[in-house]
Structure formats: C-alpha cells, structure tokens
C-alpha cells in the first residue's frame, strides 16, 4: 500500500511542474500586463513597477527565481494587492472555501445518497421518478440561477435566512452550502441509484434477504457498501470541483473565499496570484484524486488485491 502511495505521489511532481511551466508561459503570452490601466500610467511609473517586481529580468531568469522561491514556500507578492503576499491571501481564503466545500459536500452526499437509495428501492415507481426528476432539475440549474432563487425565497420573501456573508450572522452559511451542493447532490443521487440497483440484484443480497434479515439491515449493511463505489469515485473530483468551482457561489453570497481571487487574478494579469492559485488548485485535484483511489482500493476487496499485488 505504501509503495502504491509513494508511486502516485512521485508521479504527481512532474504533473505539477508542467502545470507551473505552462501557466507561467501562458500568462506572459497573454496580451496586456499587470500595470495596464484605462488611465495610462506614465512610462516612468511602468518602468519603476517592472523593476520593483523584477519583471525587467529575462523570462527564464524570472521562472527559475520563481521556482526557487516556491520551494521555500514563498508565492511572492500579489501585483494587485501589493500589501499582501499571495501566500497570505491563499491562506486566508482557503479555510473559508474549504468550509464551504465541506458543507456543500455534506449536502451533496446527504441529499444525494438518501434520495438515490430511496429511488433504487422501488425502481420505476413514483418513489423513483420524483427524486430522479428533482435531481435532473438540480443538474440543469446552474448555481447562478439556483442561488438567487433561494435568496429570493428564503432571504427576501420569507426573511428567514441572510442573503449574503459567511459567519457574520446566524445561519448565513445555509444558503451558499445548499446552492453549491445542489448540483453535486443531483449527480450523487443518480450515481447512488445506479450503483444500488446493480448491487441489489446480486446473489449475496438475495442470500441476505433469504436469511431473513430485515430489509433496512440488508440495505444499510450489505448493499450500501458496494452500491456507493461509484459515488466514492465521483467524490474525489467532486471535492476538488467544489473547492475550485466555488467562485460563482462566492460572488453571489459575498463569501471571502479563494474562488473570487482565482477568477479576478486572471483578469488582472496578477502573475503571482494566477500562479499561486493555479498551483494550489492543481495540487488539490491531484490530492483528491489520490484520496479517492485509496478509498476505493480500501473499500473494494478485489481491487485491493490486484493493486497490492502489483
């Protein structure tokens, strides 16, 4: 197992290096620079700024300097927010984005798995159609539609929940978590239903029922473990997606997470910030995919056997 882990981690390093190199080059090729503004700054100002941020060095020197600093954990100063380092901005934003992502994942798994199981128990009846059509709506409704609708209903008409913020007022975390989690809940529901249907028709389930076990026990103890495999495969990328894809929800609800910085950095040509956030999110995706693989191996005896043998 350790060898398997180590191999996967080592394989991630060239991936990340390539991500850094491509990002670094792409943002230099993009027209416009970090100091371009509508009111054109004088050449003196631009020259000074370039010098201050070491942009007057050749690009390869800049690249290796950047890598050198990166190894020491320094992402450099932000161009857009000169008083803050990229490291600081990321470390301020990440706990918030992570918390939002975690709640959204809970929403997704909670709602998704429960409704998927319910649907799978009586396929092709109303008990199946209702949650599944709801989930179809969930998949189709993007966050920027669902968010404002939830705000209108619960925030403005009913006045029960705050319409924006994150931890400033009681219950202001509810609507963003629901909004972000909804689409994933819908996917989870469909995956759970499929996985459960497959497992429920297997021999060992029939054996369990024949043994006289109550149905709930069969479902919870025997079927779920196998039925959730597709959900877990999906949970890894979903977790990474929830973290890196939260910027829409963050801007609807004014949440001071990472998502907004990620998006804005590209528009602002904030070189260090683009690199910092890209590296961060790329690492996240690598890590979550790895975690999902490990979890899957652990849950599935057949896979565990073949992986460890190799």
């Amino acid at each position: 197992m350790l060898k398997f882990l180590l191999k996967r981690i080592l394989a991630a390093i060239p991936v990340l290096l390539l991500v850094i190199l491509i990002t670094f080059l792409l943002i230099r090729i993009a027209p416009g620079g970090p100091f371009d503004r509508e009111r054109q700054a004088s050449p003196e100002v631009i020259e000074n700024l370039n010098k201050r941020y070491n942009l007057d060095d050749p690009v390869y020197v800049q690249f290796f300097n950047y890598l050198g600093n990166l190894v020491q954990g320094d992402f450099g100063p932000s161009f857009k927010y000169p008083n803050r380092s990229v490291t600081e901005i990321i470390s301020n934003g990440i706990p918030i984005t992570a918390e939002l992502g975690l709640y959204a994942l809970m929403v997704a798994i909670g709602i998704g798995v429960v409704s998927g199981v319910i649907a799978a128990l009586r396929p092709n009846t109303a008990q199946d159609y209702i949650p599944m059509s709801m989930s179809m709506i969930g998949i189709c409704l993007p966050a920027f539609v669902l968010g404002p609708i939830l705000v209108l209903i619960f925030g403005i008409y009913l006045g029960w929940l705050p319409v924006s913020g994150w931890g400033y007022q009681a219950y202001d975390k509810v609507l963003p978590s629901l909004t972000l989690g909804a689409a994933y809940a819908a996917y989870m529901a469909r995956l759970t239903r499929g996985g459960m249907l497959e497992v429920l028709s297997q021999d060992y389930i029939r054996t369990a029922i024949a043994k006289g076990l109550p149905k709930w026990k069969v479902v919870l103890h025997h079927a779920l473990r196998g039925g959730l495999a597709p959900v877990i495969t999906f949970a890894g990328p979903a977790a990474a997606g929830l973290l890196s894809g939260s910027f829409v929800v963050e801007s609807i609800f004014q949440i001071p997470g990472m998502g907004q910085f990620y998006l804005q950095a590209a528009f602002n040509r904030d070189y260090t910030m683009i690199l910092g956030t890209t590296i961060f999110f790329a690492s996240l995706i690598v890590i979550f995919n790895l975690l999902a693989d490990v979890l899957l191996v652990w849950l599935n005896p057949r896979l565990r056997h073949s992986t460890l043998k190799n």
Partner: protein
Amino acid sequence: MKIKLLRLILPLVCITAFGCGQKTETNVEKGYKTKTLYIANGSEPEFLDPHTSTGSPENNIQLAMFEGLTMKDHKTLKPTPGVAKSWDISEDRTFYTFHLRDNAKWSNGDPVTAQDFVNSWQRILTPSISGDYAYMLFVIKNAEKFYRSEIADFSEVGIKAVDEHTLTVQLNNPTPYFLQLLDHHSFYPVNKKVIEQHGDFYDPLNPWTRPENIVSNGAFKMEVWDVNRAIELVRNEYYWGQDRIHLNRLVFYPIEDKLAEERAFRSGQIHLTFTPQMATEKIAVYREKNPEALHIQPAYSTYYYMFNTTKKPFDDARVRQALAYAVDRKTLVEKVTKGGEVPSYSLIPMDPEGYSPKTLFSDDIEKAKALLAEAGYPNGEGFPTVEILYNNDEVHKKVALTLQQMWKNALNINVQLFNQEWKVYLSSRKNKTYDIARAGWIADYLDPSNFLEIFFSFSENNHTGWENAEYDQILRDAQSATTDAARFELFERANQILFEEMPLLPLFYYSDVNLVNPTVKNWHDNVMHYHRVQDVDFTVPASE
C-alpha cells in the same frame, strides 16, 4: 454507514429548522441603534495608500479616513476648510498661503503640520513610488521637473513649510481648480514617521496601510480590514471636528456583483450603494415601486467612441463626422442603456455651476449621408468593413450592437463587433490595432481641462493618433488664462476643433444611479459623485 451520514446531515437540518420561522434583525435596523452605516463599495480595495491608489472603492474609503487642506461642499462642490482653516491667494492667483489648524491631529495623536504636507507631496512626486496620479500635482511649480528627475533638489519645488502651521504653494499658472484638487487623494498627507517604521518612505510595497499599521488624519480610522469581507472604520477620537461627525462606525462591504448588491439592499443588509452605477436592469423596478430610494444624478463623465485616425477610412474627418451625425442618441439612452444617461454632443460634460459646451451638431441622417458621399462613399459604396472594439461588458455590447444597426440603416456601411477582455482591450487601444474603440472618462476634478487634455498630442491617454498644434496651443493658453471668461472662451474653441476634427464620437454622459435608504440624511447627489460620509446621519423611522 447510514448512521455516520446522518450525523453529518443532522447539523445542517437543525440549522435550517432553527433558522426558519424567525425574522433576523437586519444590518439596517442594527445600524440605527449603533449609529453604523453599512455600505456596498464595489470591488475589494487594492491598497489604501492615497499616493498609489487609483480606483473609486479605494477613494470612497480614503475620503472618510484622510483629509486634505480643503474639503468640498456636498451640494455646491465649492472648497471649504479642511486641515487648512483659511488661506490667502496672491493677486496673480499663483501663490497660495495656507493656515493650518492647531488642533488637526493624526489618529495616533501626532499633530498634523505643514511639514507633513511637504513630505507627502515629495513622496508622490518621487518616481519610485509610482503614483498614477502624480500628474495631478504638476500644476505646482517645478513639480513635473522633479518627477521627471530633471531636478534633484525638492526645495526647488514650489512647496514650503514656513512654520508648523503655515504652508505656501507656488503654482505654474493661475489654476482656478487648485483648491478643489487639494481634496483629491493624491494631495492627502501621510505620516512619514509611521510609514518609516514599516519600511522605506518611498517604497510602494511598504505595508503601512495594513489595518494594524495605518495612521490617518480624517474623521474615521481603520479598525478592521478583512480581505473580501469588510473594511470597518470607527470614529477617530483625535479628529478636530468631533461635533461634525454623527456616526460611530462605517462598514464597507466589497460587493462586486451588481445584482448581489441590489439583493443586499433589498434585504436590508446595506444602507446604500456607493459605486456609481447600480444594476441597470433593476432601475425600472425601483422607479415604480421604491422611487425614494433611487438616486439618479447626471455625472461629470462621458461615454464616447474614438477613431483610429491613422488608418483608412478614419483618416478623413468627414467620415468621422458622418458617423457622429448618424447616431440616434435619444433612442440609445432611452431604449438601450436605460441607466438615466443623457445624450452628449461634446466630450465635455455639462456643469450647471461652470462651463457647459455649446451643442454644435445633432442627430441628422441626411447630413451624415452628404458627408459620407463627399468623402467618396456615396450611399456607403466602397466603404470598407470596419470594427468596433469594446471590452467584455453587457452595456458596451448593447451600445455597439445598436450603433452597428444605426450605421447600417443610415449610411449602408458594414460594421463588425469585436470584444476583448479588459487588459487585451487596453493593449489594443495603446497599440492602435483598432478602427473604432469604445472609451469613457470620469472626471478627476470638476474642470473641462480634465477632459480636453486627454487629446493633447503628447497625452498618454490619446490613443487616436490625432494631433493638432492649434488645439495644443489653446489648451496651453487656457492653463495660463486668469479669468473664467477667458478660459471658457478657449474651452469653447477647443470644443469647436474637436467637433470639426471629430477624433472622438461623443455618445452620452453617464449618470450615477445609486440606492440609498431614505432614512440616510445628508446624502446629497452632485455631478462629481462626491460624498463625505462624516456628514451623514440617520432619520430613524418612528417605529424604532
């Protein structure tokens, strides 16, 4: 497995259930009790150093935190005393003597002295600080030379601290708007002693504006700066005009999304929106349902298209004029932009208290056709397909689409639309790789020269390739003119040249459209969108 899942879901269910059924107290209601004003302030401020900042969210906050030698009256925009309690102006109007208040203090208790202003103005004029607005100080004698490193000795620049409370300023020319400039953030004082505790006085990356470090001299001082969450200012107990301040706390929320901003207003999370334009699609709703909250004020700013005059067919002034005549501006502002804009026929906006340009042309399709025929394209024949360049934005797109159609109908010419992401658009403009480009200008100070000087032949903001020696000379004459009458006459001549040559095509004047809770008192609309929050108070509703 199920039990574990339940344990995860349960807290969320509980939160939702508890949250239901009770209305929570809104910020607006809380604000009346604690005298706190909640403000939506656009994007997250980049940094709050008054010498390097550029944007309006930064400016809104700095206006509450810093104070220049003068302030402006909310309603008339006339200069009123700030740190300077009075001033004398020489006969030729180029020499100013300012008398500073004895009781003006920094938020750490230090007195504000004349030397603070000398230090601060030297700081913004030092090239290494890279202040975009350093040019605002070029009206001062030798300031530009110092900035361009032509002189090294700052004592040659026309700023002197005569004693602790007396400051003299020597200008190049009589500059009627000089007192107004003193309230611009580029002229604000900063505390050298404090800045030097955190690094070099002339380093733009000096972290002195972080909330734990910053010292300012205005009515409010910073208490909290949570990036992307809120900036909170509290009353500066050392401020000289304690009796002028009514509020205890200002909370600025960075809300970039206009629709989110409107929702925050509607649900009572904010008292007002500070950035100049609210979500335009919501204006009609407020007009009908909540007109007391809707503030519409024509602004001192212009939306225009500029021509690349170095390229065919726009190297011919008649073509440029033809396109200007062929726009139906009334339809454009009433049916397309719908944000309270006003049709414009000049680069210079209207100023009811000062100079307003004459209207030299109108929307006239026949005239447009004649001009185009005269230029060699009768009924649009032989006219090349040209492009309108604009940056990604719904409004810009709608305007461009409308003009495309209007020109097709009126002149039978083909125009294509070309949108670019902001920074790409800026670089295309700078490199003149465009035919027609959308542009806009929001005044830094209330004077026509701020607009006209964009088209100086050497201006860094003139991306049209258009140059005119007579125009340059007129603007220089205006700089040294001593009376308003003489200046206004010169402005009118410059306006005339811009019409004849038409390097830019004026479309409309922006309006500032804001949402302000009717309980907010002393919030006066004006053409400069100038709001000193320290004068603001609440008229608390009777039920409170």
